[in-house]
């Protein structure tokens, strides 16, 4: 009983403290264009960085973008180094056991790319004997391990998607699986000239999740309500389209 009261007062104190302090929104400290990447002057730019600004403004929250290592982004949230994650983190059942999510703010298909001239399909049969590279702690790692582990020669884990792309260019891996937007951006770049898309993978909502949401600590209902309201508002009043227009030809909000 005593502890309940303590926790209750703590939550109240926490709530009031959260109002005064800016909300630390964690992004991955590794470049993930076109969503978030550092520019030459040390600022973070990209669609997701703009979207953080838009959602926070709509939710009337004072937000501070805080880069943390992708592989430790969930521990950073649960240990209190950041208050929210907006780093293309898909809403999955596995993650919901540890953290909470807002409503989704984008949802895009998952694709596999490989070297031009190396023709294969994004299926277990097509990937027979191939070396697949994925970024650690992503839904793509979980998906590849669940669906391609038996067929593929090896599944290599990279700290960043950039490094997986780099090793695809270098020829150390045959294929990499990631979000279609991120891989399209890579294929359009100079380095991506080597490769082309092998198509989308078969959907598996249990692993790939139901879109990307704001990751939040469990029990942080107040912040969750604010982010949900903020996302709903930017989608409704057209801010979402305005933010997306410079980056994408069509909406990535998804169904």
């Amino acid at each position, binding site marked *: 009983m005593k502890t309940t009261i303590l926790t209750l007062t703590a939550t109240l104190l926490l709530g009031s403290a959260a109002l005064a302090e800016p909300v630390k929104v964690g992004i991955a400290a590794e470049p993930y264009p076109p969503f978030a990447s550092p520019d030459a002057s040390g600022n973070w730019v990209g669609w997701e960085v703009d979207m953080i600004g838009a959602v926070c403004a709509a939710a009337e929250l004072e937000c501070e973008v805080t880069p943390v290592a992708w*592989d430790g982004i*969930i*521990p950073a949230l*649960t240990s209190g180094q950041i208050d929210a994650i907006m780093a293309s983190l898909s809403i999955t059942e*596995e*993650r919901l*056991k*540890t953290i909470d999510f807002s409503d989704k703010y984008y949802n895009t298909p998952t694709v596999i790319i490989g070297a031009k001239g190396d023709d294969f399909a994004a299926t277990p049969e097509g990937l027979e004997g191939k070396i697949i*590279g994925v970024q*650690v*702690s992503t839904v793509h*790692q*979980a998906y590849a391990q669940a669906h391609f582990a038996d067929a593929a020669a090896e599944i*290599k*884990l*990279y*700290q960043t998607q950039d*490094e997986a792309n*780099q*090793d695809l*260019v*270098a*020829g*150390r891996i045959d294929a990499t699986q990631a979000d279609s937007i991120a891989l399209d951006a890579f294929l359009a770049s100079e380095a991506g000239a*080597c490769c082309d898309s092998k198509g989308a993978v078969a959907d598996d909502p249990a692993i790939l999740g139901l879109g990307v949401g704001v990751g939040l600590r469990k029990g942080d209902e107040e912040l969750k309500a604010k982010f949900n309201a903020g996302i709903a508002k930017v989608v409704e009043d057209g801010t979402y389209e305005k933010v997306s227009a410079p980056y994408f030809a069509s909406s990535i909000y998804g169904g």
Partner: protein
Amino acid sequence: MRLYPHRILLILLAAALVVWCAVSLRWDWLPKYLPLIAEGIWRTVWILVVTAVLGFLLAIPLGLAQAAGPWVLAAPARAFCTVIRGTPLLLQLWLLYYGLGSLFPQYPWIRGSELWPYLRQAWPYAVLALTLSFAGYEGEVMRGAFRSVPRGQLEAAKAMGMPRLTILRRIWLPQAIQRALPTLGGETVLQLKATPLVATITVVDIYAVAGRVRQDTFIVYEPLLLLAVVYMLITGVLVLGFRWLEQRRPAKVA
């Protein structure tokens, strides 16, 4: 180590802590990952042994060149040791793996070469980087060790008409190694502590396995605790091994 009353208390406290960890933390993932963990430990130990042995073999000429070599040999050896010791191993590793890797597309013939199956994998870069690093640090240690062998012994051997290579093999090198052994033990532990860095270039050592457990299950602290215990155990084995080596002094030198 004497068993004072307070030590018994400390041991009891430690035992209580272990029991608490075993009971109240989550270990249900352990059976499923045991094969992976065993593989990871094996790979860590393998990398440690291979790089320490190769690195030490490289360190002998590096130390000798600096201690007694002509200027043309001493200067590059010195420069090599300075560069290796002056930059972080993590950076050296990434330079070798991603830096060299980024050059491959510019030279298509590399992919056709017979070395390609090796260049394609990550472990050769890990072994190369860790070997060079160990050689850099140990080259410095061996330089001191070679210098510390009393000149008189070498001069006596020369006076007896012993060929230079024989002097090195029979007198100089064994004594230098004997003198370097305590330092080498410590440096090998440091090398063990450097091995988890290879996980950042996709080599699956025990550190990477712990990461995999966290990524799959979202359990954060338990795999890290397991890692700490595994590294402490390997360190213990290394320390005991080197102590045994030190005590086994060759009778002729002593």
